[in-house]
């Protein structure tokens, strides 16, 4: 249905229960035979006006849609006032901002009530100011350590140092004093991203990038001042720093973010560092025995043309058979290796699964058509998620992924609210042993300790339905849901040879565009009038080969009235194996929504900034916007407690140690 809508006037497309202003026009006014010619003529010209208007809107909107057409009683159409910024192109993350020409807005201003609501209850963030990349995560003497790129002076990037925090469970954190500041010539312009390695004797080395006083990128070594201090409060920089400088052929600003080291079969330590040569993204390889002197390998770990600079490279083994994490040094026949890089050009994290050859320090992807960094290659997350880094948690035998979740609002707002950026909820990462072709991520088990009261629901939802799910407060939620399309609906579509369509979350118009078998899911952070809402949904499309493909999307295009925030539609197809029901999990925490499809095969993080659907006015809805399909939904919704992340005090540390 969606694909045939291309020429219909907007009013016909948007006839769905989720429209806030309840506008309805008779879509058949110009197609049904009308006895009264005057009315027919009016309807036809009305329809033509719409087509012209629609075309004009498309021309100014770069593909985003304004669902705000309202029909007045005299037949003219006006836009519901709302300034509207064109959507973000997903491929290049090219944030082209343009204001719609046709709106008669009231000036919108952020107030402190709206802004303070945006702070999260259980996601890691410093008390104030700017944060970016996760750094050197590790588990030591009973504590999970988290370091991060931090600006102590402002809510925007700059003056970067290492923030530090500890937790017993990856959820309840206490902030600690800064671990490292820019006090040497070799990191004067920034103490940038780095990773930790455990040596055989249990001690820790940290390699990190310094931006020197001349803005050259170099690698430096640091280590804890006192290994008997479980909080690892103080760090010492190796006096012989830098230990690595840009090698010949590599530009001084293309050499950063060293990885955790792994042991080679020759008994040396090996690291990799992302870089580029012209537009080819590469990963350099170095061997060392003492982390002070290095030999650069002739070969690269890997390279992919036309991908640009590789930031925050990560390299680690995953088990082919077991659902557990592996120490970074593990290798063997039951193991695949992941190469991941953050693409500077697009701000997207990509990974690929492949085979590592220890003898010459190279890696080749299983599927070169989706090699690291190619736009179609796999992503940890199809939303706002960058500079991610994993570490091996030897405490519980899992590999854990951290990701930087930046803001999608304006710097004015960040400065006004006094902070910018979050970390995603830490996720476990394993190879999907069922498909073998992708990773599976899932919020760490410990997040369940935040669950308070819950409500369970089982319902059948017909086409074009919207159900308010009464759970009380709806800004801090954990939702686990299972969906099934009724067999009769599926059979009907599968039997209809003409019912094929092309679909993509980004390009198919969002959650208001109705298909035969979708969209259906939840609308979170929704105002009761639905004027603001964030739908997270499945869309099942029947392709030309008569096969069904399931898509998992998060649509923030109507998440807020604000005209200075990015409101993309994110998502991707998600593998669904025979016999599987469709499952999704959603963590809602004020201005962040994290969605996990099919047990974490496809993950989407969104940042949203509602202006009305906040505090008590934020609600949860279940919807089925499909035209033909009835779905059954079985789900549980938990209220989530705050993680009470504490500023540094000995008291707070003691309190956490007792847990």
């Amino acid at each position, binding site marked *: 249905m969606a694909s045939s809508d291309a020429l219909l006037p907007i009013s016909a497309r948007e006839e769905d229960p989720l429209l806030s202003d309840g506008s309805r026009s008779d879509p058949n006014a110009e197609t049904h035979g009308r006895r009264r010619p005057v009315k027919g003529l009016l309807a036809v010209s009305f329809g033509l006006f719409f087509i012209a208007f629609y075309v004009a809107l498309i021309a100014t909107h770069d593909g985003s849609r304004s669902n705000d057409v309202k029909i007045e009683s005299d037949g003219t159409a006006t836009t519901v006032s709302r*300034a509207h*910024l064109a959507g973000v192109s997903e491929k290049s993350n090219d*944030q082209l*901002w*343009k*204001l719609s020409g046709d*709106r*008669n*807005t009231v*000036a*919108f*201003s952020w107030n402190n009530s709206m802004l303070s609501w945006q702070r999260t209850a259980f996601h890691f963030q410093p008390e104030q100011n700017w944060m970016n990349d996760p750094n050197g995560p590790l588990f030591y003497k009973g504590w999970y350590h988290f370091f991060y790129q931090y600006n102590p002076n*402002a809510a*925007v*990037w*700059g003056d970067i140092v290492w923030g530090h925090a500890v937790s017993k469970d990856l959820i309840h954190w206490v902030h600690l004093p800064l671990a490292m500041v820019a006090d040497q010539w070799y990191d004067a*312009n*920034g103490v*940038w991203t780095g990773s930790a390695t455990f040596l055989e004797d249990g001690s820790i080395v940290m390699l990190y990038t310094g*931006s020197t006083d001349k*803005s050259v990128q170099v690698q430096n070594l640091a280590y804890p001042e006192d290994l008997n201090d479980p909080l690892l409060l103080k760090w010492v920089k190796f006096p012989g720093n830098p230990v690595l400088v840009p090698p010949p052929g590599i530009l001084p*600003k293309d050499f950063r973010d060293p990885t955790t080291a792994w042991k080679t079969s020759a008994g040396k330590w090996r690291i990799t560092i992302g870089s580029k040569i012209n537009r080819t993204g590469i990963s350099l390889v170095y061997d060392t025995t003492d982390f002070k002197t290095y030999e650069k390998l002739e070969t690269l770990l890997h390279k992919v043309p036309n991908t*640009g*600079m590789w930031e925050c490279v990560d390299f680690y083994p995953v088990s082919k058979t077991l659902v557990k994490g592996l120490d970074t040094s593990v290798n063997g026949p039951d193991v695949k290796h992941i190469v991941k890089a953050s693409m*500077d*050009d697009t*701000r997207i994290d990509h990974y690929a699964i492949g085979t590592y050859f220890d003898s010459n320090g190279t890696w080749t992807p299983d599927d070169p058509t989706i090699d690291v960094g190619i736009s179609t290659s796999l992503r940890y997350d199809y939303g706002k998620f960058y500079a991610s880094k994993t570490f091996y948690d030897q405490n519980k035998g899992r590999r854990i992924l951290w990701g930087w979740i930046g803001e999608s609002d*304006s*710097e*004015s707002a960040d*400065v*006004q609210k006094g902070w910018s950026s979050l970390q995603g909820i830490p996720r476990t990462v394993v190879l999907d042993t069922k498909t073998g072709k992708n990773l599976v991520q899932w919020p760490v088990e410990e997040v369940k300790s935040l669950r308070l009261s819950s409500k369970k629901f089982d319902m059948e939802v017909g086409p074009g339905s919207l159900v308010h799910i009464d759970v009380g407060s709806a800004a801090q939620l954990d939702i686990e849901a299972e969906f099934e399309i009724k067999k009769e609906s599926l059979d009907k579509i599968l039997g209809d040879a003409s019912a094929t369509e092309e679909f993509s979350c980004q390009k198919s118009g969002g959650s208001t565009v109705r298909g035969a078998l979708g969209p259906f899911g939840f609308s979170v952070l929704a105002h009761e009038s639905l004027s603001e809402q964030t739908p997270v949904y499945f869309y099942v499309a029947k392709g030309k080969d008569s096969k069904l493909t399931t898509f998992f999307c998060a649509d923030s295009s109507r998440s807020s009235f604000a*005209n*200075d925030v990015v409101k993309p539609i994110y998502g991707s197809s998600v593998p669904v194996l025979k016999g599987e029901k469709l499952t999704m999990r959603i963590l809602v925490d004020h201005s962040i929504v994290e969605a996990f499809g099919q047990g974490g095969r496809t993950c989407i993080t969104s940042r949203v900034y509602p202006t009305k659907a906040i505090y008590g006015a934020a609600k949860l809805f279940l919807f089925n916007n499909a035209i033909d399909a009835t779905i059954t939904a079985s789900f549980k919704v938990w209220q989530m407690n705050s993680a009470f992340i504490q500023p540094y005090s000995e008291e707070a540390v003691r309190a956490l140690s007792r847990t």
Partner: protein
Amino acid sequence: MMAMMMGVAMGDIVDKTCKQTPDYSLCLSLLRSDPRSSSADTVGLGLILVDKIKALGTETLGQINMAYKTKPMLKKPLDECNLRYKTIVDVDVHTAIIAIRGNPKFAEGAIVDAGVEASVCEGGFPKGQSPITGLTQKMNKICDVTRAIVRMLL
């Protein structure tokens, strides 16, 4: 003679760079108006344009100030514009300058934001009543060009 040839050669970098931006003639006129452009690398050219953003932002703040007196009924949108343009001049420009040298993607973010702040400010006025339309349009154009140059550094 040598100096003249060098001048022409250097000028070509400006020409080449501007050809890769969405507004070649604007780019040329902005850069050539600054004598530093003849010997600047891409970072230098970017910094020249960030200076232009700052100058334009400052000029616009001046116009906003004057408009309080001539159009007092527009106080609310003028207040919003004041906030937005202060962000451009004090925050975005500063971030762009430090990031251009070290980590250009953050400069790109700041420049994109400058365009957003300008657009949002303009959008706050009832239709046809903005006293600064020409200036906000210029800001958007300069930001587009500057962003293209910063992206060359990625």
